[in-house]
């Protein structure tokens, strides 16, 4: 089984995000691995452990700092890592998906996994776009993927705890919401060992695609900071809450 995992390096939202012009000030933020990518890597490694095969992790190196994420992937069980040397922190999902699709084309992938979403998917997620560019079917929001022969059984999550099962003929692209098990922890010593021994394959970006979105403004949402206080007697408070709930269709 040849599984390719496409990852996304994104600005960390643990810090405040400064804005420059109409976009994030990419020079003053830290880039981290998209949290759902941890699940897609885990899902891929679980399948490899179950039926054998190789896991290749590929990502776009936006600011020249992707190596750590790739070493982490290796420490978690990936067999091969590839970085697309783009050096463009503002590259949108469309552009990244195109580069990734072009890089994946020659890899003979049976399955391509991506995290179901990322916090900077303003123009949509890379998973379904890679599927479109590779002309493969896409299924997102997966909570478990099992493979047997040429078919995968995919569980997809719906609201309210409902799940749907699909059978999918390989190859296909999946947007992983969660692996059946929590992503494993990679001890730092293993990651560091990978950093010393592993080789990262470098690929030049090829292909062009654009989100077609003009950024007019980027700003923190109107500050809330403090709850809007409902004043009055308990009866008045109750009345206002009920009114509020009704207006939002919640009562």
């Amino acid at each position, binding site marked *: 089984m040849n599984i390719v995992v496409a990852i996304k390096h994104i600005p*960390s939202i*643990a*810090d*405040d995000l400064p804005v420059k012009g109409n976009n994030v000030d990419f020079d003053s933020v*830290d880039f*981290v691995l998209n949290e759902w990518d941890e699940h897609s890597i885990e899902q891929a490694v679980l399948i490899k452990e179950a039926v054998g095969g190789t896991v290749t992790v590929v990502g776009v190196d936006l600011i020249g700092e992707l190596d750590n994420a790739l070493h982490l992937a290796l420490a978690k069980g990936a067999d091969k890592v590839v970085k697309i040397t783009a050096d463009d922190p503002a590259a949108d999902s469309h552009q990244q998906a195109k580069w990734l699709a072009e890089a994946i084309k020659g890899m003979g992938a049976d399955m391509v996994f991506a995290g179901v979403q990322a916090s900077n998917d303003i123009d949509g997620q890379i998973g379904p776009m890679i599927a479109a560019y590779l002309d493969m079917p896409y299924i997102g929001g997966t909570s478990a993927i099992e493979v047997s022969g040429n078919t995968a059984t995919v569980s997809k999550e719906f609201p309210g705890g409902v799940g749907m099962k699909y059978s999918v003929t390989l190859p296909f692209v999946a947007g992983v919401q969660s692996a059946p*098990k*929590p992503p*494993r*922890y990679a*001890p*730092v*010593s*293993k*990651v*560091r060992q990978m950093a010393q021994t592993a080789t990262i394959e470098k690929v030049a970006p090829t292909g062009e695609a654009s989100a077609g979105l003009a950024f007019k403004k980027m700003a923190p949402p109107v500050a809330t900071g403090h709850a809007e206080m409902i004043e009055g007697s308990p009866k008045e408070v109750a009345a206002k809450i009920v009114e509020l709930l009704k207006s939002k269709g919640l009562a």
Partner: protein
Amino acid sequence: MLTTIEKILFILLALVSAGFTVHGFKTIIDTIRMGRPAPELKNIPASLLKAGVTVLFQQTIFKARKVLSAIHMGLFFGLITYAFVNLVDALEGLVPNFDLIYSGKHLSPPAWTVPLINAYNLISDVMSGFLLIAITVFLVRRFIVKDKALAYRENVLLNPKVKAGGQAKDSLIVGVFVIMHVSAHLMSQAYRLTEGADPFMPIASFLNSIFGASQTGVHVAWWISIGWVMFIIPYLSRSKHTHFFMAPINLGLAKQNPRGQLDPAIPLKVIDGRKYDPGAKVITDLAWTRIMDAYACVQCNRCQDVCPANFYGRPLSPSALEVNKRYLLKEATFGSHPDLLLAPLTETVISPEAVWSCTTCYACVRVCPVGNEPMADIVDIRRRMLIDGFEIDSGVQNALQSLATNGNWMGKGKRLRGRWAKEMEFPVKNATEEPVEVLWFVGDTASFDERVIPNTKMVARIFHQAGLDFGILYQNESNAGNDVRRVGEEGLFEQLVEQNMAAFGKAQFKQIVTTDPHSFNTLKNEYPQFGGKFEVKHYTVTLLKLFEEGKLTVKNKLSHYKVTFHDPCYLGRYNGGFTAPRKLLELLGVEFHEMPRNCENSFCCGAGGGQIWMGKVAPGERPAENRIKEALTTFERHPNEKKQLFIVTCPKDMVMYSDAVKTTGNEGKIEVRDIIQLVAEAVGVEEVSQIVG
């Protein structure tokens, strides 16, 4: 006394016994040598000698259980005396006409020895009586009273043989031996008294008055007494009573490094180019000193008594760990299961859940009379579990992941670390940008937890008021890594150390001060191994000095408070920081009462060793809740109307105990405060708003 045939028999028996004994101890030594290299021990002869003296005066056992320890001391002296008595008995058997009864008159000794002989007769006679009583007390305790301290919780992993009562069997055999041996000795002396009572042998004389004298009796009693010894000595090497021999040696070879310095995950010294994986999976992955721990263990359960995890009902018992190690080794080396040496420790000596329950409070190591380090084994097992990809608690995993990316466990961005300082009414220096006298290492909880930040700011205000030239590292500070290391994530610990060392390298300072005992411990005891050359102080020491130098003065005495103080493990037990906080409290003029468990004996709040990160919280009374109750009981003994405060000097304690006051429903009765809040009130810096949440 003995006939020739008896003598030949005796010598043969002695040879067989010696053979088994040598084999026993050789096996033990070989087994210990299978362990990994331990951190280098210095001055071994001197420390062995010191241990010998310690054992002679039984100092270490008195750390707990005073009465029983006194009886143990008696037993110990009894047995030491008995080694000599046995020698004399052997001479009586082998040397014709040798005996010491009636002041040794059959030997016609020189006059000056007569008082000595009488003294010997009296001591051995009375000691025999005492031994019989003492052993009976211990046997009654074990078999009839069934002292709970000697039992294990249901959920603790136990070797099947231990479960089936193996330890009790050992005790019974040795107990019966002592009773038989001592009684037989007394009888052999009683049967010798052909000329009636010897005033220096009251018990033997009393027995003689009942049983009379008899040559056959002397022979039979002699054989029972000495024959047993031939049997029991080799047996000892195979039983829990190996501790007779191993305890003093173990104590002599106990940890010499500071308490707060963990052994490395991979031995620094390599023998025969062997490659070691970090930590411990099987028993031979432990350092040889810690394999020896198992042989030295008295199985007294003192460590279990003080273990906060055990108290909390978790499946952890440090003594069960040592006992299980002991039984595993026995079955592997004396029994028929050599494969056990390759069995995972998590299946044979301690359950994974127990491994992850340890708060690394060091209480077990501190209390152990024979210098054992169960905690060090636990950390080593964690280290390997992490490397081997064992599924760890999700909360711990989140914390570690955040530490790896953000340098703090709270999932906050690096840049936000110094945010509290930017909100101060005066500028707080960035030590990486301008030189400072004192570099304040703030720590995660104090930097990020909204409940603790008011205290952090108060520390800054007080330092500022006292004119202390201090600065912080802002986003260059990372978690110091104390608990990361104790969770077993050695690689991440090293990464954090590197980050902090790089930050220290950018800064100019004379001294580091920390508000967090955990950071304090690792900076002080472990960073030097990574090239850290700096002096580290806990803020209680710094504050005390500021008072002593007159830079801070008490304007308002706080006699309206009745307070008690909790020694944080990593300040107190680990680093002996007992006096500064107490002196401060004295200066502030509060009414101070010590809790029963204080200083070395302080009871862990339950947060250390990564426990505060745990996503799953077990049911049961938490250690912190128990501690709040202890404080309240302490206060009850001194009733008055004063406000009752529980004083802490650790940001984690602030969180743990504020929570515990709530969950025990004691709000209004007792309030948790950081010592800085009292200092602020006393020196007249504006009142801090009370902890919220």
